[in-house]
């Protein structure tokens, strides 16, 4: 019955709130996780797979890249768009390469508009 469901995996409350507010404003459903492990658990336990995942890179317990790798191994998330939220510069992006499973990048700090653009571009 509802529109797209998004999972945001991010240890900074600030970023989570920002993302959540923005996505709620377009009537999306948003679930939150504070680190990679929690994100992985939520993603796998969800009845319906999430339509899109936004994740931070550096987080306690499990980092974003590891989480993405584990998600990509599952059937449910083999093709799900996963957006990496990062403060890293362009160079680091390149070093992580195409095999990382990352679908798109969003450099923090970002404006709500760029989040909308990125999510819209990935989903539709």
């Amino acid at each position, binding site marked *: *019955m509802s529109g797209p469901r998004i999972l945001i995996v991010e240890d900074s409350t*600030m970023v989570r709130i920002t993302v959540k507010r923005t996505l709620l*404003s377009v*009537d999306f459903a*948003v679930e939150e996780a504070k680190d990679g492990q929690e994100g992985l658990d939520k993603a796998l336990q969800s009845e319906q797979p999430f339509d899109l995942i936004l994740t931070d890179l550096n987080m306690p317990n499990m980092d974003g890249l590891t989480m993405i790798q584990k998600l990509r191994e599952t059937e449910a998330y083999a093709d799900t768009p996963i957006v990496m939220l990062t403060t890293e510069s362009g160079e680091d992006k390149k070093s992580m390469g195409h095999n990382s499973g990352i679908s798109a990048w969003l450099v923090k700090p970002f404006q709500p508009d760029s989040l909308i653009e990125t999510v*819209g571009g990935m989903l539709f």
Partner: protein
Amino acid sequence: MDEELLGEFLTESNENLDSIEQQLMNLETNPDDAELLDSIFRAIHTVKGSCGFLNLTNLERVAHAGENLLSRIRSLKFLVNEDIVSLLLECADAIKQLLEGLADTGQEPNLDHSDLIGRLQVCERFVMGEDVAQGEAPEKSGEAELVEPLAWLVGFEDAVIHALIQAEMLTAADIISAGFAKLKGIEPLTSADALKILGVAKGHVDKPSVETDKTEQAAQQGQVSVEEEPTPASAKADKNEQVAEVKAEVAKPSSPPPAAKKAVAGNDSPAAQQAKRPAASNASVRVDVGLLDELMNQVGELVLTRNSLMQMISASGSMEFMRVGRDVDQITEQLQEQLLRTRMQPIQTIWSSVPRIVRDIGKQLDKKIKVIMEGEDTELDRTILNALKDPLTHIIRNSCDHGIEPHHIRVQQKKPVEGTLHLSAIQESGFILITISDDGGGIDADIIKEKALKMGSLTEEQAAVISPKAALQLIFNAGLSTAEKVTNFSGRGVGMDVVRTEIERVGGSVDIDSTLGRGTSLKIRIPLTLAIISAMVVGCKNQRFAIPQMSVRELLSAPDSSEEWRLIAGQPFYRLRGKLLPILRLKEALLFAEDEKPSGSIVVADIGDRTFGILVDQIFGAEEIVVKPLGVHFQHLNFYGGSTILGDGVVIPIFDCNGLASMVKLSTEAEVAKDYNQGNEEGDLGEQQHALIFMQGEQRFVIPMTLVERLECLEATRIEKTASGEVLQYRGEVIRVLRWGDLLGIGSGIDDPTAQMYCLILSDGGKRMCLQVDQVIDIVEVSFDIKRPSDNPLFLGTTVIQDIATEVVDVFEVVQQADPNWFAQPNDMKKRKILFVEDAQFFRHLVIPVLESMNFSIKTASDGVKACEILNSYQPDLILTDIEMPNMNGYQLAQWISEQPNLQGIPVVALTAQNEIDDESLFSDVISKLDSQELAEHLTKILQRFDIISEQEIGGTNHAITFG
């Protein structure tokens, strides 16, 4: 989950639901009570809305289904029956049940309401008149045929729905296949709208498949997209054909169902209106402007507090604090940003009356004028918008009235009969640029000049040198109107000055440009908002000042060792990318100190029609500051625009760059700079000299710079009276003051002791004298071509400078009269001759005054070839040459000179910016292009070495031009 928030949500929801039961039952008896229905709808809607925030998915789904049904009933004015009320009551019960569970455990109970949701959805479609093969649905209402495309898109403005229909996106599937990129490109959809619509569309497409599982009767197998607008006829048709048929029907504009046509056509369908209005009215609230202003003040205070908090945190060095601090910082910023947005209104609000104004004037004056507006959705703070309204109207009236020519003239000039008035607004960083241009007759700068002369706001001298663009700016002066006739609309001689005052009052600037016969354009730069601005905090003498970011164009580091500093007649300039930038030394301007070597950082300020540098000691960085008014005691200081409180609690003033620019006499200096920047590239300057033009009363004089050491602007009180006459304490000396007015016998004309006086400091042979004059006009390069000798010994005669007759002061005579012993040492040696070869006009300008001050007779050449030509008939005492030049360079020139028998023995000195030169043996000496002081000293030594001047004379050549 946030306990407090949850508590509030529960309280509110229960309140809402308490009444809902009774209301639903009332509705059963009065099914046409629209108000009652509204109230029920609102209650459920509120619950649903809050669920989204709290992530209560189960609750949200139930409430959402209930809300959809209610919204449908409402929009279609469907009269509810018993069954529907029961279903709605069931829905309310389910919500209550979920809320109770939530209250007990703090968690959303995992209850499955999909059956109820399914039934609600089926009912919704029944209400819409779909043929639902289910016993639950009783007889069809007559209104059931009412359909409208995209009815499931609730909560969007009519304009959005219309745009979608126009783009032939009539179903969820259409929308999804169009994609995000296409959707967001449709006016007036924002990216957020597009995403929201796509999300809803996706949910909408997904919905049938859920229904198929749960309520089998509802939907058909294999149906990918469900249309909301099946007609009874199509419902009876073959199932596979149904979708295609409905689609075709809606897409074809020729044969939509009557109701659908109504909805597409728009606005008069009450059903369509009702469907959308509730959401729209719920989405916005009317707020008292006073409250917003108050909020703004408080957020302003919050920003200040945040600033101090951040400073304390960074001083504490605690990482934990820092993290919290960062959050506070960001939240404050968002809060401020969003609050600012609430105060923003599109410029459309004041532009909307423009077409009407233009039409009315056009009609009265029999002119056809079309208005083109661009960027009318650009948003501005409402205070600023209000302030802009009158000036804008005035400008537009002027454009229509005086700008755009009458019919017959336009025809004569082969212009389109219809005039065009172009308004545009664009946002640049931190400010809005509004341009108002017309394709009318333009403004004649000469007429403005004439008027200004008549009005006395421009002197003849100024008129002679003023650029056409600068002359145009005079239109903003009081009392200037170029209209030949005064008409009803404009031209009463007041107005443009008010326009400027109004715009400057809100921190903006205005600039006019016009081409005769082509049109006029006015550019208004205005800050986005007034209350909180971004400013550059700078330091000067241990004090801090804020410069509004809007005026800041760039920042430069300019240590005193920088080679780009130039000092011309006491006014420092900085050479920035080949252009001389006049510099305001803040320290000197604020009377902190004077006569220091310019060094520090330069803030390049741009105030519309001109650019200047503000020399400060330090730049601390940009900061968001809250503008507070200045106390009444300071308000007469026009170079301050307000004050603010910094993070550490210190109150600092905010500069007003318009005021700063007018505080120093930049315009004169700017003209000098322009002269230097744009002067003709013709090489041979002949016997030209630098001279200073000044006024005494109405009379105009020119004095050679030969003896002028510095130009000072001093307070009248600095001149003290002693028994032997007036004196001035200057650089630790007491020097004699001569008043030019007294010498002429017309009086000094200065009664006001606080007035500023222009003093020319004359210097020769280590002696100084001060010559006080009324007004310094300009420094120019002239050849003193005396047209008429003078009887008065003080003058050499009359010459013509810039087409104005000007008396040439015999500075030697003046000094001699005042102090017969001044030239006690015989100085009758004939002038030494120098040939100066240099291709760069800039350096010629720089070096020539130095040479002049050393009493050389100068000839210049712009390259080696020209130098050779001159040397064929001219034998100088010294040749000073650049190395890098076109046609023939310095080496080749030196080589050529060494081969000429008649030029043997003449020292050839290289003047170069290079550190090393290839062949030093060709030259007698090498001088680096440094500052003029060094140049003078160096040349003196060389002259001594070559016995061209004697020891006694050296004194006279010192300090010709000094760096302050």
